[in-house]
């Protein structure tokens, strides 16, 4: 396993990736860092489930998987008095291009996820949970299973946890190569042993989820933030970030930077600081563009990013979204048409085929961008691209349609001259690769 992505010591006030070295992932190591004290505190002091949920609400923890939905609010949607089974699901199906944070959490600090899930289960009165892990990170899947075994052996999972009346069974399972399963209802379908095609919403998972039972799904990093909130209090978490943007966030920085990797920093940290942590631009080149939240989010010109802070509200104000916290950086030598071509191919490839606008539209977008990149484009293609994107976005069951459309619109909006150049000169200026 490579160490470079997270053991560089360049985090700021980390609460999830603190003090990790790659070897200290076991239960005894986690406990020596204070692990499972939040769960113990809740059970020993008999803190009520309502109080736990209220604390998470107050912390302004927002979903770290991409949508940024307030986690405490999501938890409060679960019917408290529901008589039958309810489920808790961790979404570790991390496949949003540019995102690689959950992999590091799972392999280097798996118990923090287990503890966070146990606390969530307690808060919502849930007795069974699943952690659905991206099939491509097989080592992390095996490691998480090992961590589960340790937790069971120590009485931290299973029946009557730590001698209390609280019981919670947690299992792990894996995907096998389908980006769409990161969408929460597609993930539920996959967990039920089906192809991962998203469901209509409503009903939302809180009323009709796994096997038709009330279900809450949170991202890996979201669960990982929960023990800190219980241990140190909602205010301490909130103070790490900004109002409405509590806590730290792990940003996965990739592309043309000197040191790609994961950087856990308080929400609201300036992008310029994050770029500095990532070693600055590779080979001293100039920054041209940044996709600040995973490949599904709109691209922004480098100068706008350099003036933006890394939190949900600031990035939204700048015209994009924080998403999963995947920051893809492109330097001055990159051809934006070719970059978009690569992204459009991905969405075409990964569309699940359920909704016509997405199934047909993603292929159409890709073929047009491909044509422009290869010097066969027409000027009117730019308008057709925008119109096809408009006709996909908002017209599909899930957000993959929007995810395919947003990059296209933003690339054309901010870098139109490069598209026009390809059409006029019938060639790409950049040699060979990207």
């Amino acid at each position, binding site marked *: 396993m490579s160490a470079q992505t997270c053991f560089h010591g360049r985090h700021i006030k980390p609460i999830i990736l603190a003090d990790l070295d790659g070897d200290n992932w076991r239960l005894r190591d986690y406990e020596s860092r204070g692990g499972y004290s939040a769960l113990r505190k809740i059970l020993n002091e008999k803190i009520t489930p309502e109080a736990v949920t209220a604390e998470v609400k107050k912390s302004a923890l927002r979903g770290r998987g991409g949508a940024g939905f307030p986690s405490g609010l999501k938890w409060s949607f679960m019917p408290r008095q529901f008589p039958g089974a309810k489920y808790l699901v961790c979404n570790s199906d991390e496949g949003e291009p540019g995102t690689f944070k959950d992999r590091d959490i799972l392999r280097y600090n798996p118990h923090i996820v287990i503890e966070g899930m146990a606390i969530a289960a307690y808060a919502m009165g849930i007795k069974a949970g699943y952690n659905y892990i991206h099939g491509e990170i097989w080592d992390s899947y095996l490691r998480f299973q090992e961590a589960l075994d340790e937790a069971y052996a120590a009485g931290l999972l299973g029946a009557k946890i730590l001698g209390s009346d609280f019981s919670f069974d947690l299992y792990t399972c894996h995907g096998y190569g389908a980006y769409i399963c990161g969408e929460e209802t597609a993930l539920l379908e996959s967990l*039920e042993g089906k192809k991962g095609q998203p469901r209509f919403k409503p009903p939302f998972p809180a009323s009709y989820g796994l096997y038709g039972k009330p279900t809450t799904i949170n991202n890996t990093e979201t669960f990982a933030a929960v023990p800190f909130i219980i241990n140190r209090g909602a205010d301490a978490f909130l103070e790490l970030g900004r109002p409405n943007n509590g806590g730290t966030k792990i940003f996965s920085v*990739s*592309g043309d930077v000197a040191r790609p990797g994961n950087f856990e920093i308080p929400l609201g940290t300036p992008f310029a600081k994050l770029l500095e942590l990532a070693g600055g631009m590779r080979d001293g080149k100039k920054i041209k563009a940044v996709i600040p939240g995973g490949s599904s989010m709109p691209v922004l010109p480098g100068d706008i990013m350099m003036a933006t802070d890394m939190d949900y509200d600031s990035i939204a104000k700048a015209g994009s979204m924080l998403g999963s916290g995947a920051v893809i950086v492109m330097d001055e030598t990159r051809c934006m048409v070719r970059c978009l071509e690569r*992204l459009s191919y991905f969405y075409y490839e990964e569309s699940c085929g359920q909704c016509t606008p997405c199934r047909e539209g993603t292929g159409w977008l890709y073929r047009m961008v491909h044509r422009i990149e290869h010097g066969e484009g027409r000027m009117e293609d730019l308008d057709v691209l925008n119109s096809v994107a408009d006709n996909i976005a908002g017209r599909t069951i899930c957000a993959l349609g929007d995810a395919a459309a947003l990059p296209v619109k933003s690339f054309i909006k901010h870098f139109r001259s490069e598209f026009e150049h390809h059409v006029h000169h019938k060639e790409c200026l950049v040699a060979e690769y990207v």
Partner: protein
Amino acid sequence: MSAVPEPKSPKALLSADACRAIDREITKYPADQKQSAVLAALAIAQSELGWISKDVMEEVARYLDMPAIAVYEVASFYTMYNLQPTGKFKITICTNLPCALSGATRAAEHLKKRLGVGFNETTPDGYFTLKEGECMGACGDAPVLLVNNTRMESFMSDNKLDALLEQLKQAR
């Protein structure tokens, strides 16, 4: 006149070990939800048999009490299943944008040249199949590739690619 032929008695393709592994997966789910184990069951079958034939799908279907077509739907939806035989080593390299920005397209070209095959092709000696993958959630390690779905190799410079191919050839 001959009687209606007996249905062929299904010859078990899965070993006892594989069945035990699938049984473990089934225990993760409620008793009436055995189908939930199908992704894992197919992955277990593939790691034992190399690929998922229709016969394997039917056997998995019988094992999990589900319609064969439902197994086929799953096997054909998720890209890490091999629906036809591959070389001994399937190499899947990610060429998505973050990886491409860190040399993945170049690495893929290097592999094609060294192996003498394109994507979705197998070398004539039957040892290597080259595939183009989508995001593996490891962009910080780019260029990154998978060997037979489970072994991830990171920071694949041309030298490391050559060393990997050499090492796999030795493992023949």
